[in-house]
């Protein structure tokens, strides 16, 4: 997959703010406050690729996925798909578009209605989009079950009769029912047993190859992302910190936040693991209601300077297709070690 491929989705300055009351006493007066869940994202998703989206919980990655699909209304910005801006579509027009844009949910227990048979869960998208009805629908649901590795005879069962992995397969079948182009995978394996995860990942990869799907793969597990993604975006407090082809990101992480995340991934080799240098971030993620000035990461960044507090870093391409938002992206490694050493000294003394 070359990154120069044709963009399927073009996201421009996408913002999703949630109202969070007023600043005054009892929330009656004062300025309206907002949770800035997604704060000005611009990126392309190329046809056939898997774009990974990683970050801590609460950084806005799920909201990003849902805003692209207009499951959550965008505050501003554009999501261009096939020449149409999804943000400005009416509800009715958007419903029609949902044939092409689907989602696989994180929790296979919560995302399937317990009062519906599998045939109905998978068959409803076909009915809604007038794809098939009657016998044809039954045939298609059976086919879909087979595609995701389940027996067509399961169609008459209810979700509670299945295991987590099987339920996730049902969720995948539902997403695929109407032959979408683009699927948001919202942490599709986080809720599953470790032993099942590989199966679902492999299934997603097989389906991508077979049906030419494009994925936005949301995750918080960097090792999984590395395995499945073409490119990876690292998100923090509603903003992208870094976006690069997978291999490049893993071999040359440029943003201090990415480096900290990478350093937290355990290595399955005791010798390497022992000598592995961990960058421990202090403190918690600041509230997205009042994100820090300048670079949003400065409150926890080991390299932060006055400059970082004052000025929002530009989104710069420093290596081929490798984008970073950091003033010191060129020299972070040396800088980081120094800071870590200083911090350690400070703590020791």
């Amino acid at each position: 997959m070359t990154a120069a491929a044709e963009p399927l989705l073009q996201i421009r300055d996408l913002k999703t703010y949630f109202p969070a009351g007023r600043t005054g006493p009892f929330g009656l007066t004062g300025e309206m406050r907002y949770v800035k869940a997604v704060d000005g994202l611009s990126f392309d998703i190329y046809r056939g690729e898997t774009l990974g989206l990683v970050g801590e919980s609460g950084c806005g990655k799920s909201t990003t996925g849902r805003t692209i699909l207009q499951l959550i209304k965008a505050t501003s910005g554009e999501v261009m798909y096939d020449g149409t801006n999804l943000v400005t579509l009416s509800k009715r027009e958007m419903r029609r578009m949902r044939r092409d844009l689907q989602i696989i949910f994180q929790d296979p227990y919560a995302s399937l209605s317990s009062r519906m048979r599998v045939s109905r869960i998978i068959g409803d998208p076909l009915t809604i989009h007038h794809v098939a009805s009657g016998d044809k629908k039954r045939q298609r649901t059976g086919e879909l079950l087979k595609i995701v590795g389940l027996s067509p005879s399961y169609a008459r069962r209810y979700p509670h009769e299945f295991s987590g992995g099987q339920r996730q397969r049902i969720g995948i079948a539902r997403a695929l029912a109407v032959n979408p182009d683009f699927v948001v995978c919202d942490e599709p394996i986080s809720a599953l047993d470790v032993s099942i995860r590989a199966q679902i990942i492999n299934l997603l990869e097989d389906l991508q190859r077979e049906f030419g799907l494009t994925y936005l793969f949301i995750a918080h597990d960097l090792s999984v992302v590395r395995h499945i993604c073409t490119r990876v975006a690292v998100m923090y407090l509603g903003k992208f910190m870094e976006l690069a082809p997978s291999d490049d990101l893993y071999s040359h992480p440029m943003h201090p936040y990415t480096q900290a995340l990478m350093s937290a991934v355990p290595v399955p080799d005791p010798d390497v693991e022992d000598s592995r240098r961990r960058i421990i971030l202090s403190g918690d993620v600041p509230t997205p209601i009042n994100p820090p000035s300048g670079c949003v990461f400065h409150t926890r960044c080991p390299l932060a300077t006055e400059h970082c507090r004052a000025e929002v870093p530009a989104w710069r391409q420093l290596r081929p297709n490798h984008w970073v938002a950091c003033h010191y992206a060129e020299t972070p490694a040396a800088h980081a070690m120094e800071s870590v050493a200083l911090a350690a000294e400070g703590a020791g003394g």
Partner: protein
Amino acid sequence: MQQQVANTFALEEMARDELLGEPEGSVWQRVLASLVRDKAALFGALIVLAFVLVAIFAPLLAPFNPDTEFTNGLSVTGAPLAPNHHFVLGTDDLGRDLLSRLLYGARVSLIVGLLANGLAMIIGVTVGATAAYAGGWVATVLMRLTDIMMAFPVLLFAIALIAITSPSLTNIIIVIAILYWTTTARIIYGMVLSLKEREFVEAAHAIGASGFRTLFFYILPHLTSVIIVYTTLGVATTVLVEAALSFVGIGVQPPTPSWGNMINEAQSYYRADPWMMLFPGIAIVLTVLGFNLLGDWLRDTLDPVHSQLG
């Protein structure tokens, strides 16, 4: 009224629990087993069953026509007869057979119980679900309307409404429905409000389901157990209200027998002939008790968290 408030709280609790877990599998056999184990519930279920059968088969069960005024149904002084071998429960002030009237009276109670209550459920579920799902000003208007309705003293309002129209079975049913949908609306409103935040509802949006489809096929099926329980408990209330309205003379009109108007007619004889008041009174108490016991058990059973069936 107090009973109703207690029911509301219990149901709200149940509504919350319903959201925490899902009942598993088809449970009819276990339901039956649990019913046999729970003696109070079994008692309630038997009363309800008997009540329904009596109401349906009243013409077959009644020894006499309930409206016939027997000349031998009154004493020589013209007073109602006490229970005897001919009139098993005695007669009323016009010499009509009390047992036959009691059996036919069950029909009125059943019809009012089912129709008024059913209508109230339909209004309540529609209002509550629409308000919760639509949100915004729709919710404000509908739920404030519900609050206003709840603030009226029910019986006075019913009397006023029927005084404006005219007392008839149809009007009673409509009036009771108009007065008793509010608690249902509140409960359903709360449930839909939290159900619509659940992920399977978002999944329905994601596949392009319309608002109506989402509400009807994705959300409503999760409310069935609450609706069943509340309908059962509601019958008890409705039967009582009908009796009260008939007692004050604006309910079912004589000569049609209803337990309420039978007690009304018995008022002037309660010292001399207490059975005239006693038997319809017992009928009302038993029916209300039966539906309440059954409803309580249904609530415990259908509630997946506290269920002993899981």
